């Protein structure tokens, strides 16, 4: 461990910050906040005609939950680069929390769409699904996310083996891209917000590509340099 006991105070660097005891609990509570607020506000707006979500609470609430899904996907993708940059390896175990919350918000977003927006009109649901690319893309992302949620337990990692589990969970990369495209195709004209999420996803995936590339090149460069 880098932050082993007995180091002098001057040796304390950013890499030596340990996980605060309160962190896991606070993280979970924070992750719940947008969902609790959204559910409460939508229920109040629909039943009591308040305007927390403005005049069209179903649409606004549905979009709010969709954006939070993307935010949690992005947060889960941020864990590894942040860990590599800071050396806070304890962050790794919270990737699962963030990923599961992303799935939870995706479910809420989907339920808002099916129950409140389309109101279980099966004809419309089927028509949406076969005619509208942004719905198809959103549904594809949802389907891809189900195996990730199902294999989020420690047991699954053991059963699948770390390597296969890791490979399966790389599905989050296409899911993130599909999520941004789904948002992009859904907006009427102003693409500012989807562009912002797109940039975040591009940077986070780009980081991985660059690291993968430089690791592949590094040994070869070293061997080439040592050749003569």
């Amino acid at each position: 461990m880098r932050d082993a006991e007995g180091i002098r105070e001057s040796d304390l660097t950013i890499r030596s910050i340990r996980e605060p005891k309160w962190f896991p609990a606070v993280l979970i509570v924070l992750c719940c906040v947008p969902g609790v607020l959204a559910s409460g506000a939508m229920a109040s707006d629909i039943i009591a005609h308040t305007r927390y979500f403005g005049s069209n609470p179903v649409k606004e609430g549905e979009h709010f939950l969709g954006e939070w899904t993307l935010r949690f996907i992005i947060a889960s993708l941020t864990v590894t680069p942040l860990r590599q940059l800071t050396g806070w390896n304890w962050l790794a175990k919270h990737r699962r929390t963030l990923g599961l919350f992303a799935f939870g918000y995706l479910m809420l977003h989907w339920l808002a769409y099916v129950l409140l927006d389309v109101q279980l009109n099966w004809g419309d649901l089927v028509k949406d699904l076969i005619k509208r690319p942004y719905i198809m893309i959103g549904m594809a992302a949802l389907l891809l996310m189900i195996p990730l949620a199902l294999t989020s337990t420690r047991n699954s990692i053991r059963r699948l083996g770390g390597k296969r589990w890791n490979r399966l969970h790389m599905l989050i990369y296409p899911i993130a891209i599909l999520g941004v495209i789904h948002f992009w195709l859904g907006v009427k004209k102003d693409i500012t917000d989807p562009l912002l999420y797109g940039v975040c996803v591009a940077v986070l995936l780009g980081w991985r590509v660059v690291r993968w590339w430089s690791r592949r090149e590094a040994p070869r460069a070293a061997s080439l340099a040592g050749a003569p």
Partner: protein
Amino acid sequence: MPIRTNHEPTSSEITPETLYVDRRAFLAAAGAIGAGAVAALSGMPSLAVAQHPQEPQAVGKPYGLQPDDKPTPWEDVTTYNNFYEFGTGKGDPSQTAGSFKTKPWTVRVDGLVNKPADYQLEDFLKPSVVEDRIYRHRCVEAWSMVIPWRGIPLADVIRRAEPNSKAKFVEFTTLMDPKQMPGERSGVLSWPYTEGLRLDEAQNPLALLAVGVYGRVLPNQNGAPLRLVLPWKYGFKSIKSIVRIRLTDATPKTAWNQAAANEYGFYSNVNPTVDHPRWSQATERRIGEFFKRKTLMFNGYAEQVASMYAGMDLRKNF
């Protein structure tokens, strides 16, 4: 119920609309208070205070309303707006249009007419009788409202301009003023916003040039000081803050059609059988209601407008 406002009321909001819209009414009101300028000036603030905090009553003659149609609350009508000149969010216009200057306001009527002219808004309105009409409103985004407008028939304005025999279309243009309209500094649409109608559509008695809503002067976010209202067409055809009305012989270019021709046609008549490429137009959500309603052909105004489109393929001419 008190009305919540996010900003200080502008002078146009607290001036009683009838006084602002119609000078004859202004004089009559002043006379009633006690005659003379002093009485009028002292009377106005008290009128304003008495009037402003009240939820306004919907006034006007219902046009094409269904039995269960009720006016959408003032709060929704004035805070849920698509007016991209003031931002693309529904709440942006009511939050950022407060300081928009609508006085003085000049309207140019020109093109293929015998009587082209620039009008001050007051002179533009004076020859017509201002009417209160309650219309259904259907946005292309599949939400709808019922709105009590105040305005003059567009046909009056067209008739006074005396279109010549070559005139086939009417083009409308919104004010271009990026300093006042922050949205015009963005590239979301090509500015200024333009819209268009066939001449016979513009002469349809339903086409209204609105100057007020709920018996009040049009709030800036609703397209002050002068906007079009075409209840049988999707809302974006009802162009806001109009500065120019031009008669042409060619189909006018329209803002949304230029932005996405496959999604927004020139006609854009409300039609439940022709879907937007990205969503269904068969149903709509009435603002303030949970369960969706069926969308009606021409938004319920088929009787008044369907004959204008007889023999046309409305799938092609969407």
